């Protein structure tokens, strides 16, 4: 196959991977700090995607512009969810947590079905069919914008965790729960805040995702699984890891699809997951687990 086909596929894979990475970032934050196995992650993203679709179809507002408001809405939703429903379950065994969130996911998926119906919804922006020609490579415009937005959002989040007081407090909770309690941090509030931040990430990723894919109510579970694969591969608690994991998985799937049967490309992502779990369970950039 000619080289430019490979180049095209690699570029597309990386850009898509960046958006996957942003989605996974939310999970990394939630799983890494609050230790909640959020099996409704993909479903939360579909809620955000529907929000973007509704805003676009009613008010012609571009999803990229709506990034921040949607993230804000999901932030509030996440905070309420964690403080109201999930918090008591942190100490409960994993299977209870898991089922609680699975029940939640079931409710979300079917509520979306009732409200929006089964048809796929799209966001037809003015640049939906555009592509740039950079030498031999044809870059999909929507993907390029989405990828760029993902990097910007991730950078902002990183700065927040690094340089703000609240961010530092959250990192302290993640590193040492007891220690955090000892020095008087309001852990319950910080957990809810973290979950909310994770949800905000998902919200932003959802807005960007509408530029790349159409949304249906049953979209959630596939992305939930994808998010877990990325987070574990990239490394829990590492934001750069989530983005890197996203890019890696996006790239792997793209190239595997090119070289082998596209319908089997997910197998490669799972194979990577198994290898990581066995040989480097902390992920590529994660810290060693205690």
């Amino acid at each position, binding site marked *: 196959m000619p080289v430019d086909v490979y180049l095209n*596929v690699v570029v*597309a894979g990386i850009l898509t991977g960046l958006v996957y990475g942003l989605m996974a970032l939310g999970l990394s934050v939630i799983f890494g700090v609050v230790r909640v196995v959020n099996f409704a992650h993909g479903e939360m993203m579909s809620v955000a995607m529907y929000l973007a679709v509704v805003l676009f179809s009613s008010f012609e507002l571009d999803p990229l512009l709506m990034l921040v408001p949607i993230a804000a809405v999901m932030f509030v939703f996440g905070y309420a969810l964690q403080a109201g429903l999930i918090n008591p379950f942190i100490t409960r065994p994993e299977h209870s947590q898991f089922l609680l969130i699975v029940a939640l996911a079931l409710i979300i998926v079917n509520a979306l079905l009732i409200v929006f119906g089964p048809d796929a919804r799209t966001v037809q922006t003015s640049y939906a*069919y555009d592509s740039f020609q950079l030498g031999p490579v044809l870059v999909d415009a929507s993907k390029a914008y989405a990828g760029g937005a993902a990097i910007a959002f991730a950078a902002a989040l990183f700065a927040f965790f690094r340089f703000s007081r609240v961010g530092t407090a959250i990192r302290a909770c993640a590193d040492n729960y007891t220690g955090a309690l000892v020095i008087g941090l309001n852990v319950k509030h910080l957990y809810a805040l973290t979950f909310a931040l994770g949800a905000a990430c998902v919200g932003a990723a959802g807005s960007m995702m509408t530029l790349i894919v*159409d949304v249906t109510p049953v979209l959630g579970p596939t992305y939930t699984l994808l998010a877990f694969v990325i987070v574990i591969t990239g490394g829990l608690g590492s934001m750069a890891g989530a983005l890197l994991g996203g890019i890696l998985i996006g790239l792997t799937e793209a190239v595997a*699809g090119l070289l082998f049967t*596209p319908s089997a490309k997910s197998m490669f992502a799972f194979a990577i997951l198994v290898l990581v779990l066995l040989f480097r369970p902390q992920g590529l950039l994660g810290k060693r687990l205690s």
Partner: protein
Amino acid sequence: MTSQNRPSRRRVLAGAAAAASTFAAPTIVRAQAKGPLKVGMLLPRSGFEAAIGQDCQRGVDIAPPILKSLGLPDLTVMNGDTESNVDVARERAEKLISEGAQLLVGAFDSGQTTAIAQVAEQKGIPLVINIAGAPAITEQGYKFVFRNFPTAVTITADAFANQKEVFALAGVAPKSAVFMRVNDTYGTAMSKGVAALMPKFDMPYKIADEISYDPAARDLSVEVSKAKATNAEVLLIVGRLNDAMLITKELIKQRWTPQAILSMGPGWYEDQYLKTLKKMADGPISFVPWYDPNKKLAKTLEAAFVKKYPGSNLNTNQVFTFEALLVAADAYKRAGSADPKALADALRSTNITDNVSVGPGIAFDAKGQNAKVKDSAIQNRGGKLVTIAPKEAANAKLEWPLKSYQSRA
């Protein structure tokens, strides 16, 4: 015919009676005197096939006045939701039968239909399949299962025949094709059909590559890149609505317009495809079971459909669901009773020439299959769908080749 969304006192009582009268033999309960025939309508109304199930339902909704105008008896439709799930489909079939359904219609999905067919056969209640392509369903020697829909094999064979007719109309003989297909029940069955039948039809093109993709895929850029890299003249595709939209968008973004898009499945002609893509939707040719626009009943059905659902196009889902009800009502009239054996015998001797789909009419062979139903080649044109082949059903001229996407802005 009343759509049973509201529980009638009779139905609640019937349900209680069914639960209590566990020893009653089914024949006694069912062979009542003349009243509407109770038809259990099993469709995927929720789950991942929900959109299609609800689309089929439209064929049910417009049927009553038309059936009545044909002098056919009334039907009482009992709705069942298979939830796009094989196990639920089986349970729903059992439930409808226990609630008094005298005939079943369903269910679009081959897996769910197989499960329902087994229940129907075991209980001796006739099943009229509206849509399901898996050949195996009518190869089981069943006596109570009837299918008025082509099998995947027939669809493939007719597709090749119609393609040759289309090539003749356009005066072309494409040398190369790339075959993209979704990796699900339908796509795999069609793939096998293509491999088996292409040599028999002596098609002018060779398939440069077969690219199978995941039905849940939301991004087909890699697949389209692969297809584009083959430099094929035509794109052969078996997919569904979402893939159709994704692939078209990728074709535009990757700046590749093949000479023709030949689809052997749903998606490329559906309302949402046409509405979403507007000018970009023109041109693809679909080789599918369809209505014959020159037939009288088809015109009646289309008029009724467009009246109730303006802005939508009549398609396979409504046509064959309507025909299933037509078959049921016609058999009921000739049987004179709702006794399942009588109904099955009447169904076996069905011969409806005044129908909607293409072909000589509706009649079932010894296996319960209508082997005479033919498929058409339809083309997207300005938001509408025109038939370009076979000749006896055509109502428009072919447009060839595909107009370049870049020039349509």
